[in-house]
């Protein structure tokens, strides 16, 4: 096992072999099912994020990989080897904990050397590796400090160094930046990304911050209520969400619930519960037939606002402006349609500088800008 780790660091394999696989994994705690049948394959060397709201089972999934939890059903594999019955201390993975979990009774140096000493590395190896790890996280001058004497960001770096120094096959990061303030978080995101590129080690990160996931990850698994809703690259997830949950959770969107009225000339006509008629282009996943319940997702930036009725009547609705938020480069409008629906619209700030609250206005979008989605989550 130690050899595997040692071998791993310099090798950046680009084939699609999986470092971590989860096969139909379930986890039940005291009668509550936290994870309901997950299938995942995490490729070697990729930066993989598990994204979801709190309570979705993402941390449990990470703990299943680390070995702090055993699956109630299903199997976890690391580098093709089944991890059933393998305790955490025999798994070739290392974790960066959410609260860092640094050892308060040890110095920074001893914290980082902890794993190497357990593995009974030689003194000179420990000296060299710890030094390198400290250098990697730019904490060379803090070796003699105790964790309590460090700031949150510094502790985060030490936690990272403590995991990386063991040259694991996979580094697990549990909300690694969650406790940092915004500015520091942004800085650390860049560093995390750089580190990942330099080391080529597989990173598996759990986060509830979609922006963080989108900006750092090679691929993302979006989880909800113990299931994986969608796995894909950030742009796939953003542009082509497969479920209403993913569409809603990733970025902002307007969801219109309804049913398919008719399919004609490659366009679906969807009638919503409030009586709006929406034309939308069917997709490979959602090319439903008449009377199928669907949700149409329209991103705010895809919607146009005009004061005069536009020429095209496709997906054009009249409404009143009820709220304006100026966001610098963009302006955020909330429009109440005559049907009663509230729609969020995002426009570059130079357009329509003055929309008054009283005057009637119109919103519209192209049929190709909406995305039809089935309401049920995809079955496995």
């Amino acid at each position: 096992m130690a050899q595997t780790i040692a071998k791993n660091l310099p090798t950046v394999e680009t084939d699609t072999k999986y470092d971590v696989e989860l096969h139909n994994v379930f986890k039940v705690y005291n009668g509550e099912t936290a994870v309901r049948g997950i299938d995942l394959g995490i490729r070697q060397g990729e930066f993989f994020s598990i994204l979801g709201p709190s309570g979705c089972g993402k941390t449990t999934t990470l703990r299943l990989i680390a070995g702090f939890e055993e699956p109630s059903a299903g199997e976890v594999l690391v580098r093709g080897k089944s991890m059933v019955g393998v305790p955490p201390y025999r798994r070739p993975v290392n974790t960066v904990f959410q609260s860092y979990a640094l050892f308060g009774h040890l110095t920074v140096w001893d914290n980082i050397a902890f794993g190497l000493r357990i593995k009974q590395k030689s003194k000179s190896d420990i000296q060299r590796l710890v030094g390198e790890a400290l250098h990697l996280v730019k904490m060379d001058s803090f070796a003699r400090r105790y964790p309590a004497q460090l700031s949150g960001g510094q502790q985060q770096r030490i936690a990272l160094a403590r995991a990386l120094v063991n040259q694991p096959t996979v580094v697990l990061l549990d909300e690694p930046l969650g406790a940092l303030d915004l500015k520091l978080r942004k800085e650390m995101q860049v560093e995390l990304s750089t580190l990942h590129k330099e080391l080529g080690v597989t990173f598996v990160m759990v986060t509830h911050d979609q922006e963080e996931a989108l900006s750092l990850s090679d691929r993302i698994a979006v989880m909800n209520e113990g299931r994986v809703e969608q796995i894909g690259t950030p742009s796939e997830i953003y542009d082509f969400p497969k479920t209403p949950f993913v569409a809603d959770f990733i970025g902002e969107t307007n969801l219109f619930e309804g049913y398919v009225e008719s399919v004609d000339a490659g366009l679906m006509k969807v009638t919503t519960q409030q009586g709006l008629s929406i034309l939308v282009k069917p997709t490979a996943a959602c090319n439903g037939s008449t009377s199928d319940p669907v949700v149409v997702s329209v991103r705010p930036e895809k919607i146009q606002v005009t004061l005069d009725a536009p020429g095209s009547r496709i997906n054009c609705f009249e409404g009143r402006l009820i709220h304006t938020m100026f966001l610098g480069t963009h302006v955020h409008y909330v429009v109440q349609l005559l049907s009663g629906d509230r729609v969020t619209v995002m426009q570059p700030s130079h357009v329509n500088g003055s929309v008054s609250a009283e005057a009637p206005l119109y919103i519209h979008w192209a049929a190709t800008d909406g995305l039809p989605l089935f309401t049920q989550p995809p079955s496995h």
Partner: protein
Amino acid sequence: MATSAPLPPVPGAHSSTDTVAAKLKRKLVSLIQPTVLLGPAGIWLFLLLVVPTLMILELSLIPGFRPGEPAGAYGLGNYTKIFELIDGQPIYLWVIARSVLFSVGSMLICLFLGFPVAYWIAIMAPKRWQNLLLVSFVLPLWTSSLLRSYAWITILRPTGVLNSLLGVFNLPPVDILNTQTAVMIGLAYNYLPYMVLILYSSLEKLDQRLLEAASDLGATPQQGFWKVTVPQTLPGIAAGCLLVFITNLGDFVVPELLGGASSMTMARLVYNQFLGATRNWGFGSGLSMVLILGVSIAIALLLKYGDQKAEDF
């Protein structure tokens, strides 16, 4: 008229006197506050701890002082007497050594019996049972320590409970009563609940994630225990040991009841000097000062050592 009438307030002057007054007031409050907060306990400690200790200190400097007799001149006779040889033996030093031996022995028994119990209650037992378990463990403290020591006579005597039990299993009887082992058992039994309580409160605060982190870094549960649990709870272990050690040092009932014919301890020796035949309060005070000094050194070491560790949490 201008002199008698109050001067109209000058805006600038007014505000400046105001700030001076406010500053004074703040300063006064900052002086009074600690006095008010610390006063009652301070007076209490001064009257009931500092003054009596000083009195004992004074008595200890009057060789052979006895109440009701004219006090002699000051001197160190009470202290040098501790090193006195009787029949070529430093008897009083032996007594001190024996007291320390009893205390350390009992302390170690408490630690080795108490740690697993505290560990189990704090970490492994179901949370909702913890309080009940603790209370049940502390329950023996509700009876007098003397009664508990008498109970040990019943258990350890030649035809007592222990030997009856051994007999049931066809094991040879043991003769423990009136030995140093019996004293350590009796002392340990009396102070075990305190040790468990202190260790529990220390273990209960232990961050379980640290053990996960250790395990994640390759440490087996045993390695995790020695490299994380023990160092993290070291202040608690030290505090528990010190408490047991100090209280044991002052216990003379258990050594007397369970220790047999050679069980003279420091506490009993002090007692004899004050309320026994000799009424040599001077020598008793000298012995007391040595005891106080020893205990103070132990506490000082704990504070220094405990502090170093504590600041890292």
